[in-house]
Structures are given as C-alpha cells and as structure tokens.
C-alpha cells in the first residue's frame, strides 16, 4: 500500500515514494542530489537577478577593510600586524550582512512553506540553499581578500594562506549563520538578534582563520590552524543541516 505509485484518486504522486520506503537507495540518493541542485540553482539564479545586493556586500567588505589603514597608521609594521585580524573580522561582518536574506525572503513569500511540503528531503534543499549562500557571499569575499591584503603590506605567501583560510572558513560562517537565520525566522527584530546570536559562534573561526595568516606571516607553518578549520568545516557540514531543518519546521508551525 505504502509503496503504491498512485493514490486511489488515480493521480500519480511524483517522487513521493522513492525516498519514502528506502527500497532503492540509489533513487533516494539521486533525490537528495537533485534536491541540493534544485535549491542551489534557484538561489543562485535569484541572486544573479538581484546583482545590487551582491555588489553591496562585496563593496561593504572592500570599504571596511580599507578604512583601517586610514584610521591607524601608514607604517608597514602596524598594518602587517593588524592586517590578518582586520581582513578576517570584515569577512565575518560581510557574511552576517547577507545572512538575513538566506531564509527570510523565502519565509515571507511563502516559498519555505512549499519547500517544506514538497516530497523532497528538506535537509537536502536547505543544504543547497546554504551552498548557494556561500557561493554568492563567502567565495567572492575569499577571492577578493588577497587583493585587499596588499594594502596591509602582506607578501605573496601570506596572501595565499589568507585566501586558503577564507576558502575553508567562510563556508563555516555560512553554515553557522544558517542556524542563526533559521532560529530567528519570524522573530521581531530578527536582524539584530541574528548578529547577537551568530557573532559569538563565529569567534573560533575567526581565531583559527586569523591565526593561520599570522602564523604564515611569522614564517611558521599554518597547517595546524588550517587543519582545524577543515575539521570544523566537516563537523558543521554534518551537523548544521539537521539543526536548520528542525529550526525551520518550528518556524513554520
């Protein structure tokens, strides 16, 4: 009965059963990948249509990073000392800036309800959305950072480490941020609440990320910090989709 492809009303139930019974693991896996791809493609397409928002976030990063040399001193030693911290802190803030749109717009236009009611696994759809957020928010910052690092008198190997640390660290920011965004969904003043909730969680990422760049600057290996960032990323990849899915269902109730 449960495996029937048709309801008694004679209307086919597309895709409902493949993942329901787990009788064919291949189908279920395909369904998960298709769901990730669906959410990813949709969110990236929407993001590309509203280029203004993407630009604002990247410009925000450029401006914040460029303000510090103006406010402190032009001395190369001072700039090289504060550089890694500034570049990383600004990346945290830039990631935060775009977090509010991760689930809020879908929540307000009803898309989230429909996604939660679709036969696809919500966890896979959520993972796709988070991946899209990183590609449109985290990755551009990571790619831009070495260029801005030149202002801080950091040399090429240090800039390389900076980029690697951001490529490993910004997905963690998107993942942790997604938990905060899902939890504050529908709450009044969600935006500022989100910052209070998420920024402390970002602290370990900041410590290891900026630490890796500092180590490279001091001429020691940055591998310990980078490994820890990688481990953190794997941990977040496994744990976060569960938490976000649960939080979204609570928000919809």
């Amino acid at each position, binding site marked *: 009965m449960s495996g029937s492809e048709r309801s008694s009303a004679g209307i086919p139930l597309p895709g409902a059963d493949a993942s329901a019974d787990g009788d064919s693991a291949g189908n279920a896996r395909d369904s998960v990948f298709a769901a990730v791809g669906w959410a990813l493609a949709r969110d990236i397409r929407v993001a590309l249509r509203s280029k203004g928002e993407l630009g604002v976030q990247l410009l925000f990063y450029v401006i914040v990073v460029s303000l510090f040399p103006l406010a402190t001193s032009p001395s190369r030693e001072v700039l090289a000392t504060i550089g890694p911290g500034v570049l990383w802190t600004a990346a945290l803030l830039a990631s935060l800036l775009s977090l509010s749109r991760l689930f809020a717009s879908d929540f307000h236009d009803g898309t989230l309800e*429909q996604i939660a009611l679709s*036969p696809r696994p919500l966890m896979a759809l959520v993972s796709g959305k988070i991946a899209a957020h990183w590609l449109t928010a985290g990755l551009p910052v990571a790619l831009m950072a070495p260029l801005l690092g030149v202002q801080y008198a950091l040399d090429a190997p240090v800039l390389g480490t900076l980029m690697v640390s951001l490529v490993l660290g910004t997905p963690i920011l998107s993942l942790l941020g997604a938990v905060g965004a899902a939890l504050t969904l529908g709450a009044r003043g969600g935006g500022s609440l989100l910052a209070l909730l998420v920024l402390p969680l970002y602290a370990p990422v900041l410590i290891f990320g900026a630490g890796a760049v500092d180590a490279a600057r001091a001429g020691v290996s940055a591998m310990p910090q980078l490994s820890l960032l990688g481990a953190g990323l794997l941990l977040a990849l496994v744990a976060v989709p569960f938490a976000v899915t649960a939080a979204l269902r609570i928000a919809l109730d």
Partner: protein
Amino acid sequence: MTSCADGVDAQGLAARRGYATLFANLRFAASAGCALTVTGPNGSGKTTLLRIVAGLTAPVEGEIRWQGHPMRPFDLRMRGSVAFNGHLPALKDELSAEENLRAWIALDDRSPVDDAVGEALDAVALARQRRLPIRVLSQGQRRRIALARLRLVRRPLWVLDEPLTALDAEGVDALGALLDAHLAGGGVCIAASHQALPIARERVRSLALSAP
C-alpha cells in the same frame, strides 16, 4: 466509521492559538471528488485548520487521516499528496512566471512536459505575461499563477486558503474550471472561503466554524 478511506477524515480535532482555543472536537470528512468549504468569521481558525490539514501544523488534539493513514506534520506521504495554496503565492519576484512554475515542476522530480507551463498559464489567461518578472505583476495575476501551479504540480488533495481573494470574474472562472477538472479526476479539495466556490453545488460540503 466513515467511509473516507479515499479522502480526508478528521476526528476530535482541536487547535489553539496562544491561549485561546480556536475549535475543539471538530470532525469532518471529504471523500474523492468532493470539495469541503470551511466558513466562519475572521479569527475562527480557518487558516489554522487548513495548515493542520496540509501538514504544516500539529493539532493540539485529535487525528487527521489521509486515505486511512494517520498524518503527522511534514509526513512524507502527506507531502507528496497535498498542494497547499495559502495567503502567500510562493513566487520569486526576480524570476518570471514561467521560471517560477518550471522550478516548482522540477522540485517534483518531473521534467516539464513540452509546453505544460505555457498551457497552464494560458488556462489562467496569463500567456502574454509568461516572461515578465513577478515583481511587475498585480496581486490578482500572482494569485492566478499560484492557481496554474496547482494544475502543474499534480496532487490529489488541494488545500486552498481564500482562493477567490483578488481574483476578477475571469480568474474565478479559471478557478472553477480547474476545480471541476480536479474533482472529476477524483481529487479532493478543502478550501476556506467567504464566498461560494465556483463549482457545482452538489459537489460541495460545508463546514462552519464558530467564533471562538
């Protein structure tokens, strides 16, 4: 026992919003080919009831069955069977009507049949606007696109919240045609509405909620 093994069957349903009990010990059934309209004053719990039927919210008490199986919120069987059309049209402002509808079909794991999207838009008289971004369309036009989605995302149970809102006479006719086809195919529809649904009266049952 009611004979609603092929439809929706609710027993002893109760819902609360905050501290206020909206309804309690509510029972109703809707079998294949039937529409159930939920009526009642504002704040009597129509939307809450529909969200319970759609599987978005859990009832405080009672049980709801779909084709004889008890349902819990976000139940996978329910998710594959229900089409929920709420107050929000679930359309992305940045995308066109066509892109929005194509995305919803793709989510259901089906490649869109040749021009199913075009036909569905034609059925709600929006074929000319198919490439316009949703941003520039009116409320009524958005509602019509949401109706076109019902036709494309084929589900046996339709849950419609105020489907007549913002629709003009032509739109109401389109909704009537959609509902007729759906019910004739053995589908079930539960709708909250202040006006009579534009379908034959003998197909419609009514459930009146009283003010809490």
